[in-house]
């Protein structure tokens, strides 16, 4: 029971991080019907900005964590937003009316380009960050095993939940969210009503990138070790999360992310760490066999 609770806490933390990345996949898919394969790299860049910025702030003598965390989050979001915007401009917009395979290939190219770019600028070696936020709460202690909830986990969970809530409100209630949904459903009609479709698509990339940056900052704090290749597996898992939840569905991405985090944590906790990725993808395959649209994805039923 205690062990279970501990895995639950670990799984939710990890799942929240996946969910933040997954939202970017699902939103971009919703609006342009394309998987943004460079999205994992945006997250990776967010993680690098976190390491660089935390280190720089440390050198400047700024060690008060709430302030430095806030500054790093802002920097990471700001910079990756620029990357997200540029990726759309360079790799997608020129191919908007091209056959579907073309933007897919340019996205994969963009992903490789960004990996190499970071490798050249930052080197291929891993980067480390000493623990910034230490300590935590002991929730339970039974027979020498204690269930711990670290302060870092609390921060990650709280920020993730608030971001997801804020995001859901933006999509469901604001003019911007409405314009995004309108572009998803009928881009031509949206433009006839005065929506600047290009701008709306750009903003979607920017928003997705910002969330991925937050995930990158969290991962850096959580594991303390990153390299230029982390975007690949994390991207793949977050993409899996988006598909599992139902690609195109915001709630689905959140649910899918949490589930993937939980599966991973429980598999690693109860079986073996080695095959945890296999477990994740096997469950994806099984879910898709029985629910091809994902858990919360809806098959199209409207009349045309």
């Amino acid at each position, binding site marked *: 029971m205690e062990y279970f609770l501990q895995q639950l806490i670990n799984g939710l933390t990890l799942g929240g991080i996946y969910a933040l990345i997954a939202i970017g996949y699902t939103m971009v898919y919703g609006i342009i019907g394309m998987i943004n394969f460079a999205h994992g790299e945006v997250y990776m860049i967010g993680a690098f900005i976190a390491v660089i910025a935390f280190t720089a702030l440390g050198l400047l003598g700024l060690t008060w964590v709430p302030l430095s965390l806030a500054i790093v989050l802002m920097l990471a979001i700001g910079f990756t937003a620029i990357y997200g915007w540029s990726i759309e401009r360079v790799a997608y917009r020129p191919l908007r009316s091209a056959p579907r395979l073309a933007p897919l290939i340019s996205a994969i190219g963009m992903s490789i380009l960004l990996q190499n770019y970071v490798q050249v600028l930052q080197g291929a070696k891993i980067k480390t960050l000493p623990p910034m936020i230490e300590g935590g709460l002991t929730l339970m202690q039974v027979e020498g095993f204690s269930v711990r909830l670290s302060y870092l986990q609390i921060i990650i969970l709280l920020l993730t939940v608030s971001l997801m809530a804020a995001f859901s409100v933006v999509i469901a209630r604001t003019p911007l969210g409405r314009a995004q949904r309108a572009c998803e459903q009928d881009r031509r009609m949206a433009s006839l*009503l005065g929506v600047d479709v290009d701008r709306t698509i750009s903003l979607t990339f920017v928003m997705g990138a910002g969330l991925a940056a937050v995930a990158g900052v969290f991962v850096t704090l959580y594991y303390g070790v990153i390299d230029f290749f982390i975007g690949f597996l994390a991207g793949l898992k977050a993409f899996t999360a988006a598909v599992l939840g139902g690609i195109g569905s915001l709630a689905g991405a959140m649910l899918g992310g949490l589930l993937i985090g939980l599966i991973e944590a429980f598999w690693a906790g109860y079986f073996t760490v080695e095959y945890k990725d296999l477990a994740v993808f096997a469950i994806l395959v099984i879910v898709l066999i029985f629910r091809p649209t994902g858990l919360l994805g809806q098959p199209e039923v409207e009349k045309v």
Partner: protein
Amino acid sequence: MLSVAGIRTFYGQIEALKGVSIEVRQGEIVTLIGANGAGKSTLLMSICGNPQPRAGRIVFEGQDITRLSTHAIVRHGLAHAPEGRRIFPRMSVLENLQMGATVADPAHYADDLARVFKLFPILERRQQQRGGTLSGGEQQMLSIGRALMSRPRLLLLDEPSLGLAPLLVKQIFRTIAEINQREGVTVLLVEQNAFHALRLAHRGYVLVNGRIALAGTGAELLANREVRSAYLEGGHGAVPA
């Protein structure tokens, strides 16, 4: 108010509009009739810049809008209820109407919504229903209502009576007249239902194969022999006995 001069619009190599010129004056209802595939919808869409004409000029209230993008054109004060209604299926009726107000002054929103609900009371009762689940007639009302939410000075309507029961067709035409007379909205109306459209309109154009073949007042065109034989006798534009 709107002047279209010699526009030529292509789909790939196919020339859908071969030098079309029309004029719409402030306060008028102008109708555009023509057979299937004549280019009526293409003309309305070209005015909105999607597709953009390759040659010719479109001037709206003194401003050249030929090369503007669609979202910029509609900001000048025209609105389009396009062919096929194009209701956002996974948005509620209310959200569809809010989308119609995208370029409107938010200060007018409550008034405009009340006005649309007054024209189409059914929409008020259905406001939380998803657009995709409305009946065809309800979707048509929503499409017109959505276009009105931006307070357009010029309203482009593409076959608003398509697929509606006769009673509803009458109601839609009555509503168009009301929008025009009471609210002073200028209307450019594409219709298959030539009899109703010509009776309602101040003036009309007949589009044949991407060219304007005839122009005149509604009454003149109604009386014209060619128009009568091509668009009014038999078929869906039949004159009621």
